[in-house]
């Protein structure tokens, strides 16, 4: 860990950490532009950087965006991030009653406490989990990827069928190009440009960044903002507020981290659950939704602590749990690193440097977010007609800089349209990206498993770990069907 701090405290890495958390806060503040889109857009620009600095910066964007997300929820009643939806309930009510400063201050303090708890959890859980995963072979990896995808599909949207279809489209896109084992061209439509497959950056920027911007362009007018409190004194919550929130800080930290570790659950679910727990144990649950500080502290804590939890499966198993961590996984692979059980052993400098930078980043975010909130809120006054062209431009340049290919730029436009269509038709984007990222590895693991068993599929269920994971996968996918069938039965009887 000390080595990690030595890495994270080097002037250059400190600067990258600052850039990351600053950018993260900015994009968190901006409604309609998420960390996944931002990381995807910036990914091509990090190829020339030292991987440790690049990881520190991109991770900073990821957890920094969670801090910024609360600002729009409180001042505009519009969540900057999906994870900040619950913060609107009490945060906006506090702001309407003239307590915007206290709400913003509580959000920043809760984010700091929970973010730090999340990093402690990552530091304690990741090494033993990685050690356990060292015994995994191809069948276990295949089963693990199935489990990860199933959890993402289960929790990604309102319709599990649509989430599954999005994931299958991701697998199909991942399968384009030359086959890993036999050099057969698959789904290349006779195009030489597709022989190497489709670059991850093209898919991620298209689906996330362009899809989001096209969705935002549907309307011309933005929402109206409440007045922003000025001065640090007006942003500090009272002692009574802090006393009222002490359980919310703990609840958000623990629930957020535990849910973060589960692939697919994500910060939105973490914030809803911690809000629900907070309301359930409160002495005055009826006041929730009218502007109570605990209603801000619990979800804001949970969505920050979740980022530490989400790093656990990403770094130790190579299994991302969300669209953003899928992009981080692709970034690791593009830099020649392979997240998984050997990650800590093979790249201790990078792993511990990242963990240490997350501690430092959380301190930076607290300092940035308390006194500088009024400044960040000014970003909301930035006209959309200057922001969206810039995102289009960065997307085109980002894709073009990877391969200097105009073909990729056209593919970007195609995936942008796909991303927009998915938003319109309520198809979640995360399963598609996860299917795309895990597709190659999943096919490789399955085919290697079947080679090991000379084509006998029972290898997947005859090994205890893979059998357990596949059983859980099936259970997760069929449980909602039973629930729905039961609901229909009850309805029919009544």
């Amino acid at each position, binding site marked *: 860990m000390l080595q990690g701090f030595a890495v994270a405290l080097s002037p250059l890495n400190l600067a990258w950490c600052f850039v990351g958390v600053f950018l993260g806060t900015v994009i968190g503040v901006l409604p309609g532009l998420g960390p996944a889109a931002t990381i995807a857009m910036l990914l091509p*620009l990090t190829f020339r950087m030292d991987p440790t600095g690049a990881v520190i910066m991109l991770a900073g964007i990821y957890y920094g965006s969670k801090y910024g997300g609360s600002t729009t929820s409180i001042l505009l009643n519009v969540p900057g991030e999906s994870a900040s939806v619950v913060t609107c309930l009490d945060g906006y009510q506090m702001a309407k009653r003239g307590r915007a400063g206290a709400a913003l201050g509580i959000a920043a303090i809760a984010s700091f406490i929970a973010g730090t708890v999340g990093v402690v959890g990552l530091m304690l859980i990741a090494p033993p989990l990685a050690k356990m995963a060292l015994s995994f072979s191809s069948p276990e990896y295949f089963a693990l990827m199935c489990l990860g995808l199933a959890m993402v599909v289960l929790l990604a949207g309102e*319709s599990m*069928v*649509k989430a*599954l*279809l999005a994931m*299958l*489209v991701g*697998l*199909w896109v991942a*399968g384009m190009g030359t*086959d890993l*084992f*036999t050099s*057969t061209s*698959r*789904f290349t439509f006779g195009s030489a440009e597709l022989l190497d497959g489709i670059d991850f950056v093209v898919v991620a920027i298209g689906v996330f960044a*362009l899809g989001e*911007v*096209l*969705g935002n*362009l*549907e*309307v*011309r007018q933005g929402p109206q903002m409440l007045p922003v409190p000025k001065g640090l004194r007006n942003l500090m919550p009272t002692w009574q507020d802090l006393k009222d929130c002490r359980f919310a800080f703990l609840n958000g930290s623990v629930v957020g981290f535990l849910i973060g570790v589960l692939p697919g659950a994500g910060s939105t679910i973490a914030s809803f659950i911690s809000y629900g727990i907070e309301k359930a144990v409160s002495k005055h649950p009826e006041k929730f939704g009218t502007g109570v500080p605990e209603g801000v502290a619990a979800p804001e804590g949970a969505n920050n602590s979740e980022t530490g939890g989400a790093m656990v499966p990403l770094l130790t198993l190579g299994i991302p749990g969300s669209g953003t961590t899928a992009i981080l996984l692709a970034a690791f692979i593009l830099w020649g690193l392979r997240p998984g059980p050997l990650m800590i052993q093979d790249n201790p400098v990078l792993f511990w440097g990242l963990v240490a930078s997350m501690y430092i980043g959380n301190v930076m975010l607290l300092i940035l977010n308390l006194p500088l909130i009024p400044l960040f809120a000014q970003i909301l006054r930035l*006209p*959309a*007609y*200057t922001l*969206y*062209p*810039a995102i*289009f*431009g960065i997307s*085109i*340049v980002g894709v*073009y*800089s990877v391969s*200097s290919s*105009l073909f990729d*730029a*056209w593919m970007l*436009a195609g995936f*942008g*349209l796909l991303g*927009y*269509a998915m938003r*319109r*038709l309520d*198809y979640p984007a995360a399963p598609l990206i996860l299917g795309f990222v895990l597709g190659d590895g999943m*096919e490789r693991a*399955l*085919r290697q498993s*079947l*080679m090991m068993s*000379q*084509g006998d599929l029972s290898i997947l269920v005859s090994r205890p770990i893979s059998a357990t994971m596949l059983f859980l996968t099936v259970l997760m996918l069929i449980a909602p069907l039973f629930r729905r069938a039961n609901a229909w039965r009850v309805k029919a009887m009544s």
Partner: protein
Amino acid sequence: MSGAVLAGLGIFIIVEARGWEYLGPDGPGPGFFPLWYGVCMVALSLFLAAMGFAQSASGSAKAVEWREVGRALAAWAGLALCLGLLKVLGFLLAFGLFTFFLVAVMYRRPLGVALAVAAGMSAGFYLLFPLALNVGLPVGKLGF
């Protein structure tokens, strides 16, 4: 509608996968994995299409806001045109025109504002990418 499109994609995947080796002497071939996800895709998309049909028959389907969709598609068409012009005009000019279109047409800002934003955006990209970051931009027939 989306269910029908995805069913078509699933059938295409199955047809293509059947042209590749399914199981060889060394184990599963290149057609093994696509065949299975193609089958899953057809089954799920047909289920989705049936659900959609049932919903529209009962009148509970969501109405489409065509005006909003039209705005997004117009922006996408502008982007496509910009990409088409990259080879001829280069990034700076094509992107400037695209920005002008977004500001003047999509956001209905005065022409002077649109021109200023477009010029500023192109200049900003030139300063940031080729000059500061040494990242090349697509060059057109005019040499920039």
